[in-house]
């Protein structure tokens, strides 16, 4: 039963992703993307990674997607953007990307080990993750914090100019 749930979530994640990436309307696409992320969170949970599942929902589906929503709302894309997107989704535009993506997928398939092995089934608790994180991975944490700081500064810089001096050209 739980396995069925797993495969169901997998199918949902995949189909939601595909739908998200084929929508012309950004808001619609975003909803599908959130759906996909939630489905992935379910997968995490089922694989015994509850902490990851929670963060997936909180940060990915929550914070990041909300950011998208804000931006889409600020930009007010409108009908014309939609038309443009729709025209970009012609069948002939699919050919090369399609081939490329398929090739990549085939290669990744080769990369997947053929020896059938199951996941362990043991859950890894947030505590263990925390211990590991501030133990051997503490340097990575510092790097990540640095990266986030850089992202913060960059976003502030870019956004500030947009907000404060939107009247002037550049």
């Amino acid at each position, binding site marked *: 039963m739980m396995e069925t749930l797993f495969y169901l979530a997998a199918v949902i994640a995949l189909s939601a992703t595909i739908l998200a990436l084929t929508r012309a309307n950004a808001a619609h696409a975003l909803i599908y993307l959130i759906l996909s992320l939630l489905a992935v969170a379910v997968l995490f949970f089922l694989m015994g990674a509850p902490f990851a599942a929670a963060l997936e929902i909180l940060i990915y589906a929550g914070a990041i997607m909300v950011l998208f929503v804000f931006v889409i709302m600020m930009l007010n894309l409108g009908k014309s953007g939609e038309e443009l997107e729709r025209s970009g989704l012609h069948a002939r535009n699919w050919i*090369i*990307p399609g081939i*490329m*993506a398929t*090739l*990549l997928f085939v*290669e*990744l398939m*080769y*990369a997947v080990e053929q020896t059938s092995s199951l996941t362990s089934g043991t859950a890894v608790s947030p505590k263990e993750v925390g211990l590991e994180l501030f133990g051997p991975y503490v340097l990575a944490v510092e790097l990540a914090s640095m990266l986030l700081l850089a992202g913060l500064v960059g976003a502030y810089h870019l956004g500030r100019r947009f907000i404060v001096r939107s009247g002037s050209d550049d």
Partner: protein
Amino acid sequence: MNTLSLIPALPLFSAILLMVSAGRLPKQISAILGVGSVGLSALCVAMVAMGFMADGQVREITLWTWIAIEDFTPAIAFYVDGLTIVMMSVITGVGFLIHLYSVEFMASDESFSRYFAYMNLFVAAMLLLVMADNLLLLYMGWEGVGVCSYLLVGFWYRDPDNGQAARKAFVVTRVGDTAMALGLFLLFTELGTLDIQPLMAAANSQWQVGGTLPVLATALLLGGALGKSAQLPLHTWLPDAMAGPTPVSALIHAATMVTAGVYLIARTHELFLLAPATLEAVAWLGLATLLLAAFAALAQNDIKRILAYSTISQIGYMFLALGVGAFSAGIFHLMTHAFFKALLFLAAGAVIHCLHHEHNIFRMGGLRTRLPVVFASFLIGSAALAALPFTSGFYSKDSILLAAWSLPDIGPTLWAGGLLGALLTAIYSFRLVFVVFFGEANTEPDKQAGWKMAVPLIILCVLAAAGGWISQPLDDVFPAQGHDVVHVIEYIGIAVPLIGLLLAYLLFLGKQLSLSSLTESSMGKALQDFWLKGWRIDDLYHNLLVRPFTGFARLCRNEPVDLFYNSIAGALRWSHRSLSSIQTGELRWYATSMVFGLIVLVAIMLRNAS
């Protein structure tokens, strides 16, 4: 300072002084410097010559070592023997007269001092040429006179034609000079010295008569001589060189420089004696040149061009003499020719001077009474040129023909050719006299020759008439040559010029004989035109050498080698363009290429893993 070194130094210093002063000196002082230095030089020559006559000693002096590298040690050194004395006397003596004459001739020219600077420089270079004790120094004089000739032919630089003539003179002779330089290289490489006397000794001891090396070396030297002496095939520059002032033509292109080739061969005659093949070639070339130039002289209208062709022709005689081994006869003719040809040129110059620069003989005429001194000079000069009996030219030409006759095998042919030349010489020289001085006057002279012109003319008249009795101190220089005097030959030699004179009289003055039927025919006209243009050898060279050269130069003008480098640059630019064209700026395109790269990388990794 030694008298010997003063001889070339005086004109040289005068030339430098005149050049540095750059025309700031008054004309009189320039004239005194220019004429005086050559005159003093002539006096020095006279002193040296008298000393030489007294003791017969060869005089040598080394001023300083020019270059000393291992065995190569040419010095600035002079060597004066009988041959040099003859040459020096001609150069300074005739040179002095011509300088004096120039003072009047050039009196109104704005570049008066420049003229005398060049002339003095020329005299210095020419003296260097004949006095040099080694071939390198001789070569320096050789090139020096070439440059002075260039400068003086192109003296009136405003007319591009004069410049053209000057350049032609220099470049054509340079071709010969280059051959001569190669000859020097060969001589030094093989014999290890360029000092003339040791060189001759070494050649005599190391080379065999008729060997390859002597023939080659003398042929190369001959190249230089042909260029300088305007002999076939390098003679084309001389008629054009008449663009210069007339005294220049008299000094450089009649009396001295053009005979440098004769001097060279005479100076190195021991080498030439080792190479009979070259010597024979000298004779044949001389003969061909003398006939060719004589025919061309017949058809000219320009008074100076007639004289130019006659110069070429007379030098042909000298070459003929050298070729048949009659070196002293050749030098003798050189001297007498210097007298009478200088005389003719100066007289022609006087005519031109008095007729406001008229050159065409058919626009002259009847000048006999109006310019009596000039007429007398011209008459005597022409008589000597035509070798009428008892003139100087008669003695020299006669000895040449005699020497040619006495040569076995080819002798009679050479003699006959020379005789034909003598006939033609008589015809064209008296054609000149008759047309210019007799008949009706076409142009009135506007002035008379002054004393500075007249005195040189008179002195030269005496020399041209009586120069045949001067004996040259050449016995120690050249091998003795005795020939049996064949009286018949002598009589023929006397008769032929007279026949020529008669023919000229009948054709051009008395009009008893008429060539009109001949000259009117298309054939005759073509021939006349052909000769007028000097056998069209100029055209031949123009088409054969000049045009390909200029064509090639024009073709290469924009640097064909750059095509190669530009093609490299072009290839780089092309690849730059094609590479930058894939930088479309489209983000999706970049993403796609990244995917492609990823695919390839993953494929490589998979391949390595498996």
